C-alpha cells in the first residue's frame, strides 16, 4: 500500500494535466467560459443573501454578522467538499474505458476530482476576500488558512477514495449520495454557527469532521479568534487517518475495478 502511495508522486504530471483538462473541458463551448468559476460562487452568495436578508431575515447574532458573508465563508469550502464527494461517486464508472482498456492508475481519478474542485475553491477565494475587505473583516488569523485547507484536502481525498471505490460495487451509492450530502450539509455549521447550538446537539456535531474544518474557516477568516484550535489539532491525525484508510480501501478493491466498471 505504501509503495503504491509513493507512486502517486510519479503520476504528478498526469494528475496535473488531467486537472487542466478537466478545467478546460468544463467550460469549453460556453459563452462566458472560465468566468463561470467566479460567477457561480457570486450567484450563490447573492441567493443566500437574498433569502436570509429578505425572505427569512436572521439576526446575525453571536459573531455571524454580516450573515451573508458568514454564510459564504462556509459555503465555499463546503462546495469544494461536497462536489468532490458527489463527483467521485461516479468517476470510476464513467471512466470505465480508461480502467479497462489502458494501463491506468485508477487512484488518479478521484484525486483529479478533488484537485479540480480545489481550483474552483481557490477561484472563489478572491471574491470572499473582496467582501472581507469591504466589510473591514481582514483578520490576522488568516495565516492559518493554508493549514486548514491542507486538513480539508486530506480529509476529502480519503472520503473520495472510499466513495469512488464503494460506488463501483454498489451502484446504489450514486443514488443516495445526493441526499446524504444534503443531510451532511445540515449537520455541518454552514448556515448556522457552531457556537449557537445547544451543547446537547453540539456533542453529536463534534463527531462530524467537517464541523471542525468549517469552524476553522469561519474563525480564521471571519471572527478572527482561534478558540477552536484544540479540535483542529485533533483533526490533523483524523484527516491523515481518513486519507490512509480511504486509500487502503481503494487499494484493496483496485483489482476488481477493471472487471466491475
Amino acid at each position: 500500500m505504501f509503495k503504491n502511495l509513493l507512486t502517486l508522486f510519479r503520476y504528478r504530471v498526469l494528475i496535473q494535466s488531467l486537472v487542466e483538462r478537466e478545467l478546460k473541458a468544463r467550460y469549453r463551448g460556453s459563452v462566458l467560459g472560465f468566468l463561470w468559476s467566479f460567477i457561480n460562487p457570486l450567484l450563490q452568495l447573492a441567493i443566500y443573501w437574498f433569502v436570509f436578508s429578505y425572505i427569512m431575515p436572521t439576526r446575525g447574532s453571536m459573531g455571524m454578522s454580516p450573515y451573508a458573508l458568514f454564510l459564504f465563508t462556509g459555503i465555499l469550502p463546503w462546495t469544494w467538499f461536497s462536489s468532490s464527494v458527489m463527483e467521485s461517486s461516479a468517476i470510476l464508472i464513467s471512466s470505465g474505458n480508461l480502467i479497462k482498456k489502458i494501463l491506468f492508475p485508477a487512484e488518479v481519478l478521484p484525486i483529479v476530482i478533488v484537485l479540480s474542485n480545489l481550483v474552483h475553491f481557490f477561484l472563489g477565494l478572491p471574491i470572499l476576500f473582496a467582501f472581507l475587505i469591504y466589510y473591514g473583516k481582514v483578520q490576522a488569523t488568516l495565516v492559518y488558512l493554508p493549514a486548514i485547507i491542507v486538513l480539508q484536502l486530506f480529509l476529502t481525498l480519503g472520503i473520495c477514495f472510499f466513495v469512488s471505490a464503494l460506488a463501483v460495487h454498489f451502484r446504489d451509492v450514486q443514488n443516495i449520495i445526493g441526499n446524504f450530502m444534503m443531510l451532511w450539509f445540515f449537520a455541518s455549521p454552514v448556515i448556522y454557527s457552531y457556537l449557537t447550538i445547544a451543547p446537547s446537539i453540539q456533542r453529536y456535531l463534534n463527531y462530524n469532521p467537517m464541523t471542525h474544518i468549517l469552524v476553522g474557516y469561519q474563525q480564521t477568516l471571519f471572527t478572527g479568534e482561534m478558540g477552536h484550535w484544540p479540535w483542529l489539532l485533533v483533526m490533523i491525525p483524523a484527516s491523515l487517518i481518513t486519507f490512509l484508510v480511504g486509500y487502503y480501501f481503494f487499494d484493496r478493491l483496485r483489482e476488481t475495478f477493471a472487471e466491475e466498471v
Partner: protein
Amino acid sequence: MGIAIRVSDVTKIYQRYSHRKQFRTLKSALLGGNLLAELRPDERFEALNDITFNVREGTTFAIIGRNGSGKSTLLKCIAGISKPSAGTVVVKGRISALIELGAGFHPEITGRENIFINGIMLGLSEKEIHDRFDDIVDFAELEEFIDAPVKTYSSGMYMRLGFAVAIHVDPDVLLIDEVLAVGDEAFVHKCLDKIAEFRRRGKTIILVTHSLGLVEKMADEALWIDNSRVQLRGDPKKVVDAYLARVTHHEEKALVAEEEKAVTEFESPKSATEHEEQESEIEPSSAFARKKGRWGSREVEVQEVTLHGADGSARHIFTTGEPVTVRLKVKSTGTIHDFVFGVAIFNADGMCCYGTNTHLEQFTPVKFSGEGEVRFVIPNLRLVEGTYFLDVAAHQRDGYPFDYHRALHQFRVQSKIKDVGIYRPAHRWEFSSNIVLKPPKSTS
C-alpha cells in the same frame, strides 16, 4: 536472444455475482456488517486456465482463437490492466497496448491537448511528446483538424489519432488487439508498415487477430487458445491450419443442424396440390435472402439431399476447386413418364450463380418408378468463398411441381484466396520475362 515476455501458469477467474446480489445491496451489507463478505462472488468463470508460454525478444507472436476464447483477457494480463488470479507475467521493457484506440480521449478538448494527455497516460514524458508531436500528427494525417475538439472527429480520425499516439510511445513490447479492423484500406496499410518497421527494429510484438492471413504473413510463432486453454503453439502455418480444421468442424455441425431444421419444417406438404409457399425467416442480415420453402404434389418426392466431396463423405464445407457431387434420393409414387430434375446454386445475397435441369440440357424423360438416386456431379467447384444455398426440384416439363426445395440446403465454400465475384473461371497468370513476380508460397 532473451525472453521478452514470460507467462507462467496464468489463470484468470472472473467473478460473477448472482441475481441475488442485486437485491442485497449496500443496505443489507451494512446492516449485516459483512461488507467485504458481500463483495465475494458466488459464481466463477474461468477465462484463462493455466496458460504458459514465453515470447522471445524481437519476435512477433500471434494469438488466435474464437470469440470469447480468452485472447483479450490474456492480452490484458500481459499489459497489466488486469491481474491474473494465479500465475505470473513478466514483461521486459516498456509496453504499449493497442487494445482500444483513443480510450483516454476527452471529447471536449482539442486533438492537440488530447495527444499530450494520452501520451502522458501511456507513459511518455512531456518532453518526449513534444519531440514526437509532429510525427504523431503527421502519421494520423490530421494537420488541419488538430486544434478542433475531438468530438468533431469522424470515427476514422479518432482511431487514427489513437493509433498514432499509441505507436509513437515507442515501446519495447507492442500489444495489438484486433485494432487493425478499423480504418480505411490505406490507413491499415500504413499501420501494417509501421508494425513491420517495429519488427525490423527488433521489437517484440504480440498480435491478437482474426485475420489468419496476417498471422501467417507476420508472425514468427502462434498460439491458439480455445476454452480458456492453450490448444496449440508453434509454427504459425501449423497452428492456423489446426485452428481452421476445428472451425470447419464446428461450422459443419452448425450447417447440419440448420438443414435438419429447415427440412423438417417443410417436411409435410400442406396438401398435395397446394402451390402455397411456406415462409420462414432466415438471416435478417441479408436483405436479399430468398425465402425458404418447399412445395409440390409429391408424386415424386426428393427425400434427401446430400453433398459429397472427393472421398465420398457427406459434408457441408468445401474448398474452391474441389470436386462436389449433389446426391438426390428420389421416390416416385407410381410410374411417371414426364419428369425433370433441377439444381440451382444461389449465393448468400440470393443471386443465382448457376441453375440447370435435365430438360434444359435436353434429356428426354422416359420412365421412373420406385426409389432412385440422382447425382449432379461438379468435377471442379469454381465458386468463391462464401455461403451458398441450394435449390433442388423435381417437376414436369411444363413446370408442374412434384417437389420443390427452395434454399433448404446450404453449404460453405472456403478459399485461401480471397478473390471476389460469383464465379471463378479456370485461369492462370502469365508474364513476359521483364515482369518479375514471386509466385505464392503454396497454392492450394
